[in-house]
């Protein structure tokens, strides 16, 4: 058991299938993410990449298959599931900051209430994280007073405050104006370099290519191709991937 915990991948998916009604969004997906690995999940809209990301912390319930985090199966419900979610950070496309709390409160809220960290300590940690994402001067602002890029950086700081073992990014820059994408990607690149384990659903091919260790390409609910970013972008194997790359790289 001990051995399996040290050698098992941080995240392990086996045969994960998800139906929305009759629609099969995920079709027997297998995926391993090692500790410290940065995986980009690419694919066209509707290929199932967001659904896969959301199944990993059970925001979406997989219909079939097993999901293991650090060698332990994902709990079904209740306290055990909440405890596991605390170890798996998530950053959303639409930020989902809490509008009725200040930026600092957004970040310190879960450490205080979920981790039971003393308030002063959680607040000090929140200030450090804000400085890390370059927003030290926004501590007392409300989310509505920030730009989209700033809000997403706060959301990343909020996820980091729980000291997660793996971070899931669900299209973190898709809701942003072009000029704000870079500031968010810079923070994510810095995180990747610091050794954080990351799964990133994205349309930012530059980020996938330069900041990630591996690219998984999804089509119709399956991972149809995966490999190093260099290999995938220069020599895609499947027709579907070639087609996808030709469409996005032409422009």
């Amino acid at each position, binding site marked *: 058991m001990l051995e399996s915990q040290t050698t098992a991948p941080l995240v392990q998916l086996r045969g994960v299938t998800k139906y929305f009604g009759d629609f099969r969004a995920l079709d027997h997906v297998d995926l391993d993410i090692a500790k410290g690995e940065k995986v980009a999940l690419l694919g066209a809209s509707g290929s199932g990449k967001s659904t896969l990301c959301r199944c990993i*912390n059970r*925001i979406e319930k997989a219909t079939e298959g097993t999901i293991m985090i650090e060698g332990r199966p994902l709990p079904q*419900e209740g*306290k055990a599931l*909440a*405890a596991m*979610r*605390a*170890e*798996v*950070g*998530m950053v*959303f496309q*639409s*930020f*989902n*900051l*809490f*509008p*009725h709390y200040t930026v600092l409160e957004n970040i310190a*809220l*879960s450490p205080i*209430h*979920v*981790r039971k960290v003393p308030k002063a300590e959680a607040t000090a940690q929140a200030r450090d994280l804000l400085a890390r994402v370059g927003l030290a001067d926004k501590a007392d602002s*409300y*989310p*509505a*007073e920030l730009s989209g890029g700033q*809000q997403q950086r706060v*959301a990343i700081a*909020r*996820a980091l405050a*729980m000291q997660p073992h793996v971070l899931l990014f669900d299209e973190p820059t898709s809701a942003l104006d072009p000029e704000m994408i870079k500031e968010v990607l810079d923070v994510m690149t810095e995180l990747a370099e610091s050794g954080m384990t990351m799964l990133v659903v994205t349309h930012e091919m530059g980020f996938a290519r330069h900041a990630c260790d591996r690219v998984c390409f999804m089509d119709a609910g399956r991972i149809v191709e995966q490999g190093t970013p260099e290999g995938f972008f220069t020599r895609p194997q499947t027709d579907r991937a070639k087609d996808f790359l030709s469409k996005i790289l032409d422009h």
Partner: protein
Amino acid sequence: MVEILTDNWAFLLSGVATTVGLTIVGFLGSLIVGTIAAIFRVSPVVPLRLVGSAYVEFFRNIPLLSLLVLVTFGLPDIGVLLPLFWCGAVSLILSGSAFVCETVRSGINTISIGQSEASRALGMSFTQQLALVILPQAFRTMVQPLANVFIGVLIGSSLVAAVGVSDITNVTQQLNIRYAEAVFLFLLSGAVYLILGLGVGGAGSAVERRLGRSRIAGGKAVSR
């Protein structure tokens, strides 16, 4: 007619006090019970949801007068003997809470699903999600509907006169029997309800304006 007032001011005031007391107890009780019922109705546990729905559908759809008669004359049959005031209060709470429940539930439904997803992703329990994230935001949208429920409880409280609680309606009925000044006396009790209702409506608007000015409301407008 003025001597009706001067001769009976203490009696009249006790009626007003009973009406105010019933309304406040009835509304606060409705708020607590109704919020619990609403939490049942949005809970992930199916049996709780069913209990919540059954409660609301039952108490929302029977007349308050029937409830009053049931509580006042039915409960003693099964050995529960409440003071008259509390028979009125309990009936108002049972009926009012059904409406509070629907107000709170629709308030919760105005909060985007992303808020609950984000709080779940941060490891919050269902109770923490509600208490820290969802309800504080939902409350903003519930102020005016809750003021309506308050007025409903206030006006509904006049029915307790029928089971013998000495509220302002009951007091003016008793005075009418003595003085035969129906129009004057019912205008008088009507004025009491009108003034109280206007006060609550005004207070509701004031709370809403204050919330509207705060940065909290701005957050909602921009982040959607």
